[in-house]
């Protein structure tokens, strides 16, 4: 019904600045300000950031080989690689241990490997290492940026960088707190707690960190005492997190764990919700009214949880596992329309969508072909309308500077004059593209924010209080 052919032709090698009068304007247009809003748009390059340190085992080759006693080596192997490492160590040092022990451990090791390869053949993602899994199931990119999150209520955003630090930028403030923590490795996802000024949830490789960054503090390096560490055995690496819209619960998911955790963050207690099948949970998204939760698995299956009594429905895969692998990266703002999109786009060529909170602009990140020169990733923006019938109209392509490809994007949660799309580019730049329009109607009306927006929009007619005090 809507093909890319009807889109206005993209202007290459010119940065898109804003939309005005139903037209996307780029930097080539004369008379446009380079930065139309006062939001910070920092740029990070890979060279200035030290990559995350290598695992300790790989630095071993730099030292001379030192033979420890068997006990020491076994203890080290147990600490580093668990049961597998211990059995491997015993099998390898057959001349030092009794024969039956070496043979026994070799047998157990073979049995374990066979069992895990059987399990892995059912769920291929389980054979990946932890780092590969993080790269596979998160929005991580080759740029210096790893993740991005707008605060849901204020002009404040957090960026996770390649060196495992997180920076927080505020409009009208030069202080940019940098968050670093010992456990903060391979950050996969960031999300600010709704209805809270300070709490930021960070999904790390081994645990979940909840930072409490005091908004009034001028400190640039909040101590690691400001972070709560939440972890559960077997629940790592965490690749997706989602706060409930009321801010009372936090759900986390890991591709290796079939259970997703529902955290009561203040009490630091977790309720595991386990469903076998699927082999893990890779993506979580709440519906805006908080009544349902989508949980996608790495295999051809996803579940929709009802959040009153926490029962779930299994949804069948639509077009084979390939589409569902794409689906895990689908950012759904309006839950009900997800299926419409699955049918409209066949889910074959895009990897991310983002819907602005008013439901009037939809950005779709079209995955490019990394081999071909002329097929970079681009962002296509649609105008959407849900009443009286659902409509999609082309708006245009959002382009970056020459050579830069979009990596991830998010709409500003409460931009006054329309919508504001924030895009993280492959060259480490973060830019903001405002779309100026006047709101035509509301989408669905199920979102509390939208209801609120409608109520607060016309102050004159809907005055709650007469002025009691001067």
């Amino acid at each position, binding site marked *: 019904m809507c093909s890319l052919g009807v889109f206005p032709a993209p202007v290459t090698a010119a940065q898109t600045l804003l939309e005005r009068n139903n037209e996307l304007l780029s930097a080539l247009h004369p008379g446009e300000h380079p930065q139309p809003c006062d939001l910070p748009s920092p740029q990070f390059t890979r060279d200035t950031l030290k990559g995350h340190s290598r695992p300790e085992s790989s630095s071993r080759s730099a030292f001379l080989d030192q033979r420890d006693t068997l006990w020491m080596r076994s203890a080290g192997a147990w600490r580093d690689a668990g049961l597998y490492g211990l059995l491997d160590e015993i099998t390898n040092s057959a001349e030092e241990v009794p024969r039956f022990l070496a043979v026994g451990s070799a047998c157990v090791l073979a049995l374990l490997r066979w069992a895990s390869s059987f399990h892995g053949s059912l769920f291929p993602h389980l054979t990946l290492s932890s780092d590969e899994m993080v790269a596979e199931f998160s929005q991580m990119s080759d740029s210096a940026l790893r993740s991005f999150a707008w*605060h849901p*209520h*204020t002009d404040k955003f957090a960026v996770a960088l390649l060196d495992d630090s997180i920076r927080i930028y505020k409009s009208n403030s030069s202080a940019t707190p940098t968050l670093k923590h010992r456990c903060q490795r391979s950050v996969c996802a960031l999300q600010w707690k709704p*209805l*809270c*000024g*300070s709490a930021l949830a960070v999904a790390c490789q081994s645990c979940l960190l909840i930072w409490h960054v005091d*908004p*009034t503090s001028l400190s640039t390096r909040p101590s690691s005492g400001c972070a*709560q560490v939440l972890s559960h055995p077997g629940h790592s690496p965490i690749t997706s997190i989602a706060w409930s819209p*009321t*801010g*009372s*619960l936090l759900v986390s998911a890991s591709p290796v764990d079939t259970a997703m955790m*529902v955290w*009561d*963050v*203040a*009490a*630091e*207690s977790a*309720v*595991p*919700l*386990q469903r076998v099948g699927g082999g893990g949970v890779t993506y979580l998204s709440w519906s805006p009214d908080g*009544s349902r939760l989508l949980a996608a698995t790495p295999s051809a299956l996803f579940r929709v949880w009802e*959040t*009153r*009594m*926490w*029962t779930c429905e299994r949804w069948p895969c639509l077009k084979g596992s390939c589409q569902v692998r794409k689906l895990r990266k689908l950012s759904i703002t309006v839950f009900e329309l997800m299926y419409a999109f699955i049918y409209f786009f066949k889910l074959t060529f895009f990897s991310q969508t983002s819907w602005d909170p008013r439901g009037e602009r939809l950005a779709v990140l079209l995955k490019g072909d990394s081999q071909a020169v002329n097929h970079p990733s681009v962002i296509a923006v649609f105008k959407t309308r849900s009443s009286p019938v659902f409509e999609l109209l082309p708006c245009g392509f959002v382009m970056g500077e020459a050579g830069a490809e979009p990596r991830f994007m998010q709409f500003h949660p409460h931009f006054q004059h329309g919508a504001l799309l924030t895009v993280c580019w492959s060259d480490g730049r973060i830019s903001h593209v405002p779309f100026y329009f006047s709101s035509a109607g509301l989408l669905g009306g199920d979102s509390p924010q939208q*209801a*609120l927006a409608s*109520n*607060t929009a016309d102050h004159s007619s809907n*005055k*709650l*209080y*007469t*002025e*009691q*005090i001067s």
Partner: protein
Amino acid sequence: MIFECLVLLIAWSVLLLPVTAAVFVLLSRFSLFHPIQWISECTSLLTASSTIFSLVVLCGVVLITGLFNLEFYTLVPSIPCSRMALLGTVLHPRQCVHSLVYCTMGMLVMWCASVTIGGRYSTLGIPCRQSESGEVVTCLNEYHLFLLLAGAFMGYSHSFLGVVQNMYYVSFQPIQQYKYPRFKGCLPMVVKCSVIQSLYSARNFAALYFFFGYAPKTWISSTLHLQIDSSLQPLDSLTGLLDFSLLYHLTISGTFLYFTWYLTVLLFRIYVTEVLKCEGFIVGYMKANDITLVPFFALQDLALLSQHSLSRRLEVFCLSQPGGHPHNWNAISRECLSLLSELTQRLVAHQDAVASNGRVKSQSASSDTRSASLSSSGKDIAETPRLGVPALTAPFTPDVDSPFSSPAIRRLVGQQEPRSPWFGTVQSPHIMRRGPKLWSASTGLNRGFSLSKMFSSNVQLPEASSQALFADSQVHIWALQGLSHLVAASFSEDQFGVVQTTLPNILSCLVVLLEAVDRHFKLPHASSKPARAVCRMGDSTYKTLRFALRAALKTAIYKITTTFGEHLNAVNISTEHRKRLQQFLEFKE
């Protein structure tokens, strides 16, 4: 309701018993090299009459465990604030009866286990040949005795840990689940806990038996006129204890024992905290025989209805037909606000107590007046029936004068539980003189708190006073959630503006509570996090309730401020409160 719950609980425990017994039999007779013989032995054993008899005995044990759960469970944990108070709790007669019964039950279960395992464990007396005369006499079977004593030990340690870890404290989960999924989710945890606890107990018991095993052995053998077979290795020696098969059977039996008990505890928790799904179920709970649950369920229901049910929210906002008074909303807001302001008073009283205890005596005059005001406020709380949360049911049942209000509340806020060990037993004139100050503050915490001061200041457990202050905060959290959701919903759903009239009260109550909570977290130990429990059956949720309350309070205020936005400037509240709310409007909290 609670008795139906008990019947269901016992029925399920009894139904699960054969399954666990079968697993126990399989594990106890396990032999790697004779699998066929192993299976056939187990099947014949499972149908034997002795096993059936053991099962009947175990059913009796389960029944008594269920009754004890019902008798001992609490929704507000009792937190001993000093080591002396803890000792008092452990030595309390009620607790002694509990320990005694659990010791007996432990021995019974272990007797069943040893009969089931059979072999050398089966009977207390075995025939043996005396070395000098060669005649056959009955000797003491030390293996059987060992297992029986282990059962008694495990029973006592279960009872003891029940007090220390607050095993009978029932907490509400952050999410609602149906019974079966919740049971399924908790089962691995229960198995893990029972295995770990059994390993610990086996280690401790082996050590104990090594040192003191001689005494019960000689006592039993002399009272029952059983000989001690000198040809066998005695078990209270190092070589006797290093018997792998014995330790394995001890651990397996211990796991079986703990699992039976823990399962009952788990099922009880699930049944007690279950929320009925039908509309207006509060009416059902009003008929409940156990009144302690009513305020909890009323507030939980309020929090849920305010969030999920539009029709019931509209019922809250509606006006009474003749007269046009918002009775429903008035009742709800009054009860919630009185709960919250009671918490504020409690916090302020605690802060005053801490501050004045650190001061010198020269300020006695001022502290006297303070204590007088404290005592009056404390009396106020104790005597006022308006605190009755059951009046929350006003929207659903017409009679506001609920017969349940006062006793329910007394237990709800934990006031002067008569079975508390120190209540009425302290005769020290020192305590008596300080009486009005110590005993007036609303909760039981100041009791232990000041007692510990009296004995020695350094035996006081850190954080405990803080935990005790917030021990019943689950109701406050629900009240905050319910109130904030209702107020936020009123922005678009309240047609008659019934909420507007109480909004200034609500806002100032929340801000005052926030100030009190903020001040409380500045006290030493109040903001330190408790260590994470490794794997315990005891529920330690109460240790973090104060953090949960603070988070819920801030979220509640944010919920209201983000919904109302700039309209809040027109609400009539004092200037400091407005300043504080402005912080929330700018997301600077």
